[in-house]
């Protein structure tokens, strides 16, 4: 249970970190909170000759409004997000999702960038990013670019980031108006990764019709997914006409790659997913209706 030997680098800036990645090539890996990477190193599921620690890179930390979005620096710790009033006000879904991540000891070190880059399909932040149509800012030796969340998650633990590319931060669009947000998940024990879960964001018009909505699904594919068919079916409809159970079923109907393992067969996960959507929908609509 000990990681293989590696060399340790502690750059002070994003430019230096990216420079190190470029010169060291695929033998190097970024280290943020270490709450996913270090277990993988300890289990020797991963071996790298160089770790590039981001702990001194101040420019990766912060939470601020930028135009219509909330920017959260990749190096911002989950515990800081949990305690942030700015996050509660501008990105309630991110605020609700955070306490569901592991335990407080994990959130004291784990970062938002690490969670997104690690890209576990059952993790909360990737699903939140996908639900809110977030944009991910990245930098490589070829410059900076912005990657939409819809294109970011490409497979089990893999993303659109190149090997020499660093995640700078995530931009979460702020939903204004009569909005509601909810996340629901089923985990065997508190703090475990969820067997399946769902996120819902909904905005109502003044006649209590669905102006827009987004449904995220976690743990139900090799990547986080959207329940697009259910979203399309709900938009424009009055909320009292919509049956949350039906929305749940529609949201999971398109899934064709539901994971199965010792903890749960695919069919069970799918049913749990539908129920989580239904509960999250109910809560989100209630909250929006109060607005």
């Amino acid at each position, binding site marked *: 249970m000990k990681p293989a030997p590696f060399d340790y680098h502690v750059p002070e800036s994003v430019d230096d970190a990216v420079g190190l990645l470029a010169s060291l090539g695929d033998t190097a890996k970024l280290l943020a909170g270490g709450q996913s990477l270090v277990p993988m190193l300890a289990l020797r599921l991963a071996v790298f000759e160089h770790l590039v620690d981001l702990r001194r890179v101040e420019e990766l930390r912060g939470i601020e409004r930028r135009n219509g979005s909330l920017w959260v620096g990749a190096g911002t710790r989950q515990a800081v997000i949990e305690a942030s009033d700015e996050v509660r006000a501008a990105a309630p879904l991110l605020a609700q999702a955070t306490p569901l991540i592991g335990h407080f000891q994990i959130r004291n070190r784990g970062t938002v960038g690490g969670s997104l880059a690690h890209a576990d399909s059952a993790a909360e932040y990737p699903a939140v990013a996908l639900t809110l149509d977030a944009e991910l800012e990245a930098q490589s030796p070829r410059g900076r670019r912005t990657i939409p969340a819809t294109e970011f998650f490409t497979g089990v633990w893999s993303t659109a980031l190149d090997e020499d590319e660093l995640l700078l931060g995530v931009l979460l669009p702020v939903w204004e108006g009569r909005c509601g947000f909810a996340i629901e998940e089923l985990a065997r024990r508190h*703090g475990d990764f969820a067997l399946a879960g769902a996120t819902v964001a909904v905005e109502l018009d003044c006649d209590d019709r669905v102006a827009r909505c987004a449904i995220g699904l976690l743990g139900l594919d090799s990547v986080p997914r959207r329940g697009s068919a259910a979203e399309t079916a709900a938009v424009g409809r009055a909320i009292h006409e919509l049956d949350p159970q039906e929305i749940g079923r529609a949201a999971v109907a398109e899934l064709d790659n539901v994971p199965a393992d010792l903890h749960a067969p695919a069919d069970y996960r799918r049913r749990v997913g539908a129920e989580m959507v239904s509960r999250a929908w109910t809560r989100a609509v209630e909250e929006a209706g109060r607005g």
Partner: protein
Amino acid sequence: MADVEVEIRVNGQPRRASVEPRRTLADFLREQCGLTGTHLGCEHGVCGACTVLVDGDAVRSCLVFAVQAEGAEVTTIEGIGAPDELSPVQAAFRDHHGLQCGFCTPGFVVSVTAFLRDHPNPTDDEIRDGLSGNLCRCTGYQGILAAVRAAAAGAQATTG
């Protein structure tokens, strides 16, 4: 693979050493500082036996490399109390049968110490949530729960 010089304050004392980058903070504390109160169960972040405070935050010392703690202030179970001078949390664990073999206890005590500092008046749900990151394989959790309740109540009584 070059060793790295680190200086870490452990329980108030500066400790300087040359470490392999792959050395975890847990192994640094146990082997380089001789502080064997920090226990290692799973060594991959699941059990919480290795919990210590780094700059006041409860963290898994098996998921932190010693090189990452350069310049930090680390508190281990040895810094929280002494055999003849138990901390209030330690005393509550003893009084309420919060331990049996004691293997998980340092991790619990460190976690609970940080938890009660941040939640001085916790509900039962909050206590369960706060304990969820530590596993005990022999005592059973009811005694631990009772110990945390008692420690919280005791702290409330002394601060008035």
